[in-house]
């Protein structure tokens, strides 16, 4: 690989990311699967870096899942989005940051559509007024939460207590980055680094001392694909897509997968379990899997958060080997204890996946 070549491309796909004052919207999936990730995001940005990130309990889903599953029409989803924008305007913000890639893609799609068809935007305005008596203003800047962490990557690095380095060998950790398809494949110009060699996560890894892995199926979808997963009969396709990615990254022996999408960490994590249990194949060292983390979790780790506070126990693939490599001290006994210290109950041990 010729690194300079990539830098040239990356330099052509840079977007303006304001430094502060954001209206934050959460992700349906992440709230339920990785609640700690969003909490960590807010904690880092607000408390550690002292940024103004506002969120309101009145915001709803963006409707993306329903939309991509062909259960609601585009106008409906646009009206929902319009309402979110209205909330942002109401609270006097013009920078919009969302935690979900599906939402991010959908916001981009919506704004592009409105740009192409102003009459549609007018119609949505009308819909929103009729339904909620609200007026909306389009955000001046639309970014994804990972864009923001990318923006702050060096600030974070400055406050980091450890690097993405194997403390035993001194080697940088081999990291696979996986961006959500809807982050930049639909609108390459809207993502940092474009669609072919996206930079948003690479930037973080480089800043935090890790080494990025460039494997053939890097751009391939994690396998979620909405319908492919929601209909059980199609799950084989979803699984096969994930399998393809792991087969492709295997020779590079990655220590960790970092993602910026709600679906990806979930599927890259859970499908490893399914592949292991149904075929006996595992991809990590000696029977372990490859931990698939969110960028907030990785950020949390380098900044010295307690792994269990980061919710790493909610992953199917055990993170302990990673923590050992990074020299993160943790208390195995506390793994399945909730905030107030009461036992959450530990999962059944797996037959194949350690």
């Amino acid at each position, binding site marked *: 690989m010729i690194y300079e070549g990539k830098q040239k491309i990356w330099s052509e796909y840079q977007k303006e990311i304001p430094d502060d004052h954001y209206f934050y919207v959460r992700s349906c999936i992440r709230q339920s699967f990785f609640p700690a990730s969003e909490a960590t995001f807010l904690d880092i940005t607000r408390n550690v870096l002292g940024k103004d990130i506002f969120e309101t309990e009145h915001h709803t889903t963006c409707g993306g899942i329903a939309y991509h599953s062909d259960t609601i029409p585009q106008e409906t989803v646009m009206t929902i989005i319009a309402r979110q924008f209205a909330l942002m305007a109401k609270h006097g913000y013009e920078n919009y940051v969302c935690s979900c890639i599906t939402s991010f893609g959908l916001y981009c799609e919506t704004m592009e559509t409105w740009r192409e068809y102003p009459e549609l935007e007018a119609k949505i305005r009308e819909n929103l007024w009729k339904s909620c008596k609200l007026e909306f203003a389009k955000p001046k800047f639309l970014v994804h939460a990972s864009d923001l962490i990318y923006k702050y990557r060096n600030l974070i690095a400055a406050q980091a207590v450890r690097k993405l380095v194997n403390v035993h060998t001194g080697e940088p950790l081999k990291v696979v980055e996986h961006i959500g398809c809807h982050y930049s494949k639909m609108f390459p110009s809207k993502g940092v680094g474009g669609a072919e060699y996206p930079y948003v996560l690479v930037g973080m890894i480089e800043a935090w001392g890790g080494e990025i892995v460039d*494997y053939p199926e890097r751009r391939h979808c994690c396998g979620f694909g909405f319908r492919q997963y929601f209909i059980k009969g199609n799950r084989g396709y979803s699984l096969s897509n994930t399998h393809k990615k792991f087969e492709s990254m295997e020779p590079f022996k990655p220590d960790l997968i970092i993602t910026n999408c709600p679906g990806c960490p979930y599927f890259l994590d859970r499908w490893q379990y399914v592949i292991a249990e149904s075929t006996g194949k595992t991809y990590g060292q000696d029977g372990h899997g490859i931990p698939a983390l969110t960028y907030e979790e990785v950020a949390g780790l380098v900044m010295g958060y307690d792994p269990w506070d980061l919710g790493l126990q909610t992953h199917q693939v055990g993170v302990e080997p990673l923590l050992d490599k990074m020299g993160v001290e943790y208390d195995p006994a506390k793994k399945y204890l909730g905030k107030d210290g009461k036992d959450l109950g530990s999962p059944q041990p797996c037959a194949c996946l350690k």
Partner: protein
Amino acid sequence: MKNNILIIGGGPAGLEASAQLQRMGYNVILIERSAKLGGHLAKWDRLFPDRVPADEVLGGLLRAAEGVKCFTDTDIRAINRLEKSYNVRLTNGITVLSDAVLVASGFDLFNAVRKEEYGYGIYNQVMTNADLEAYFKTGNDKRIENPKKIGFVHCVGSRDEKSGCRSCSKVCCATAVKQAIEIKQAFPQAEVFCFYMDLRLFGRHYEDLYLEAQKEYGVRFIRGRVAEVSENYDGTLLVKAEDTVASKPLKVTLDLLVLMSGMRPSASVKELGEHLGMMVEEDGYFSVRSGISAGQRSPQPGIFLAGAATGPKTLPETLADARAAAMEIERYLTEIFPDARNYKQLVKERW
């Protein structure tokens, strides 16, 4: 009658035209922005379909153009139209008063970096047709060390609206087949694949070249455009395309991938256009008086065009075009130009 004629561009078209015009007794001034005459021809090793050495052809052109006043490393600073002729100031300080101007600004090769998905400049084992010609000329390129499997991608930057070129570059198919044969001659054990959308082997003997590639060299032609290239752990390339004949997606591991960069309008077109007040069409090439009956005449009286300045052309087409331009200039300078009184009238009627 020693009219001055300024020829812009020292490639095959410029050289051929200047040789012809000089023979007709005109006073030819040839300017070339780069340091060397010959344009792309100077960088090429052998030419399709008969694989004649490019140097021989160029040598012939240069010999024929001997005695022509020519300035290399020279560009145009400014042009202003006098009543009939043009006053041209060159970057080397010289000013030329020329009665006719021939624009032979040629073409640029498509910058393969623009097709990110092919990874040119990013993966070690990806090169362009020009790189390969250079290898054939010099015999050294760190990317080529006994490759076992080699792929050629046709239409890189051609027939691709996303990379800003809807039309066909005309020469790449034949070049690809020629290079496939040559690389196979260099590495007889190698497997060679050509990924094409349509094989446009229109010229005489081109089909023979195609047949030879299949029959004698076992080159595999796959109808389908490479869509994604990525690098394997061992540095080899994983190439994905569709075999549209079998209508199935396809993947293959290659040691070397050659991109057939197409023809793009020369970068100089824009400013030249401004200097000469000449229109450039949507495709970026100069527009002509009439694509059929006046392909060498620009809309501007006294300004002529030849070669790839008016769209992709093969070498023989370019040379023929240059000769045609020479005839057009001769006609203009004898029938229209001299008649000072009715000049405007004649231009209206005959230009």
